[in-house]
């Protein structure tokens, strides 16, 4: 529970900065005030500015209106409850079970933080006593392989990389290596790609098929890495990658900035893929399991 608390604290600290900048301090806004039309409008503005999106914001605000609450404090609690309820279906723990090696594949658009998240995820798994092996599957971007290898060296995690070529082949190799070394978990990096690049979407489907060929049942987790700075396009990303790969989970990165990642509210409504982890800082242990209640708490204070 210690980790969860400090996570919430961190997240809250990050979001407190946001509120300063945004000049819409939700708790201040709601406390010691009578509920009137302008308060609902301010609430709506706060949710929109957190990237919750028009549809999700309107749904949340109108559900609160129906409660006909009178004082701000009650409204604040109701808002928190509504958000927590909306986000709760996204809560799921990553469990490494059964298969060995257990294969986790990461996907995402360019610059969403895949490689960094892999580092943090490997660290998190090591803390759970798992042996981890990384597959440098981003064979496209300049020095992506070097980035992962450098990280692996620093943290004593083996990285399987090939001088060039095919991401499927790298993963195939990595699975062989993992079996030979008895590694429990393989995490596969992939190149960043936009859903509009259909040939690259086809390529990543192939990587997934290769994993299944190399080992029945793999990949066991297919995670999409989302940047918390992303606006409503994050929802389109979830849909496109889910349609192409059948996502099992999401990782939301860069929550240590001023962005709130409210787009998960829209995701929860329209394509509820579980959110496994949130990245709340630059340090290696700043990847934390997602807790709906804490997230809701941090979002509205």
């Amino acid at each position, binding site marked *: 529970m210690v980790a969860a608390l400090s996570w919430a604290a961190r997240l809250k600290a990050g979001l407190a*900065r946001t509120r300063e900048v945004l000049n819409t301090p939700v708790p201040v806004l709601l406390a010691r005030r009578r509920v009137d039309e302008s308060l609902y409008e301010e609430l709506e503005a706060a949710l929109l500015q957190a990237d919750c*999106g028009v549809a999700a914001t309107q749904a949340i605000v109108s559900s609160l209106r129906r409660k006909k609450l009178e004082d701000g404090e009650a409204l604040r609690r109701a808002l928190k409850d509504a958000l927590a309820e909306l986000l709760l279906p996204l809560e799921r723990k990553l469990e490494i079970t059964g298969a060995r090696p257990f294969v986790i594949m990461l996907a995402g*658009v360019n*610059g969403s933080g895949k490689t960094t998240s892999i580092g943090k995820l490997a660290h998190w798994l090591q803390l759970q006593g798992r042996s981890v092996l990384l597959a440098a599957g981003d064979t496209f971007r300049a*020095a992506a392989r070097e*980035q992962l290898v450098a990280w692996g060296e620093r943290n004593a995690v083996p990285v399987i990389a090939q001088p060039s070529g095919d991401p499927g082949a790298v993963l195939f190799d990595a699975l062989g290596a993992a079996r030979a070394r008895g590694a429990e978990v393989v995490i596969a990096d992939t190149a960043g790609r936009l859903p509009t690049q*259909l*040939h690259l979407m086809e390529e990543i489907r192939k990587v997934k098929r290769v994993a299944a060929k190399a080992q029945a049942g793999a990949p066991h987790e297919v995670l999409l890495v989302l940047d918390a700075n992303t606006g409503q396009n*994050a929802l389109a990303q979830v849909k496109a990658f889910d349609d192409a790969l059948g996502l099992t989970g999401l990782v939301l990165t860069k929550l240590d900035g*001023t962005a709130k990642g409210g787009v998960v509210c829209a995701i929860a409504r329209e394509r509820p893929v579980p959110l496994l982890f949130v990245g709340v800082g630059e340090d290696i242990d700043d990847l934390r399991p997602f807790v709906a209640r804490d997230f809701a708490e941090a979002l509205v204070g």
Partner: protein
Amino acid sequence: MSGTSSVYHPMLDNLTARLAKIVKQIRGEARLTEANIQDALREVRVALLEADVALPVVKQFIEAVRASALGEEVIGSLTPGQALVGLVHRELARLMGGANVGLDLATQPPAVILMAGLQGSGKTTTAGKLAKLLAADKKKVALVSCDVYRPAAIEQLKAVAAQAGADFVESKSGENPVDIARRALEHAKTRYFDVLIVDTAGRLAIDEEMMREIAELHAVLKPVETLFIVDAMQGQDAVNVARAFDARLPLTGVILTKLDGDARGGVALSVRQVTGKPIKFAGVGEKLGGIEPFHPERMAARILGMGDILGLVEEAHARIDLDEAKRVADKLKRGRGFDLEDFKAQIAQMKKMGGVAALLDKLPAQLAGQISPAQLQDDRQIRRIEGIINSMTPAERADPSMLKASRKRRIAAGAGVPVQAVNQLLNQFEQMQKMMKMMKGGNMARMLRNMKGVLPGLR
């Protein structure tokens, strides 16, 4: 509206439908009034929010449009709705910068360009693109990385510099970024470089230490261009980030990256409004050639979901081999039919235009919405068609009507496809043949209109 299409352009479909509704609702009034634009403006507000324009900017914008719309006469055959949409589009384009502005490198060389932005916004790739662009302009360009934090960031820029054909100033992750900057500047001066592009680590606007670092870099380098690199997918927080960077750094311009995605890019308006700095370029794709001048009108249309028809036409003109098109047209005029050999040539031209995926992005919502992602295998399908045609004899290519069952079987076996694929190709060919007749006069607009039926994956 098909269910699958919403995967790629959910909001586009949405907005176009909405605007169409507005146009219908307020038809037949001669003047824009408070009453007849109220609903329309509400829809525009929603559209802008869904395009990720920041809320304060949206509010400002709607008020400005309301003020300038009231009393405006509805000219000619326009409905008030159309007039309003036109006004919204014009106003958006105006706010995003009027005409497009390039780099201003007029200074005592070396002209220094400093790159700044959040993590993952695309600084390093964009640095390479700028280097390539300037090198093509006969400039002697050097690149240097002050990103000593992210593993292999320096190696990445080194690889990118090599691809761009630019000089690379070495740096190490153990060094102080400001020392690197000083050394690189000295290097560029003594070796008479025209331009020095300085890549920096991604940083959070609230990271005081890092913001101080980049301010110091700026003081040492005295860059002639300080460019703020922004991800086109960024959401509401863009105003806060842009304001914070603008407050700490005298920005001279903005580059919008990842515009080849399907984000509507409302961030362009947010950042422009907050910083007042021109958006100088748009980044499209990971290849180093993927950088374009920023076009405010097109961006306005994209934010509103109107599609980049202009860009499509321009691109078609640039890439299509005019001689080849003329050869086919001549052939048609001489009365000879359009045969499969010509069809193959057409397909090759389509490939040059970047395949269907590149076109998709530029089509307006009504059209893009009709593309089924499942069918759209694009380049693969084009290769397949080529394979089938290559499996035919010259006689068969000249006169496809001779293709009966056994010839089709042979061709299918040769191309490694089922016979149905051969039939499908012949059907597509027939449609293309019809279209070519229409194109006789070289009417590109008409051809684009009819492309819908012929492009693989469009239905």
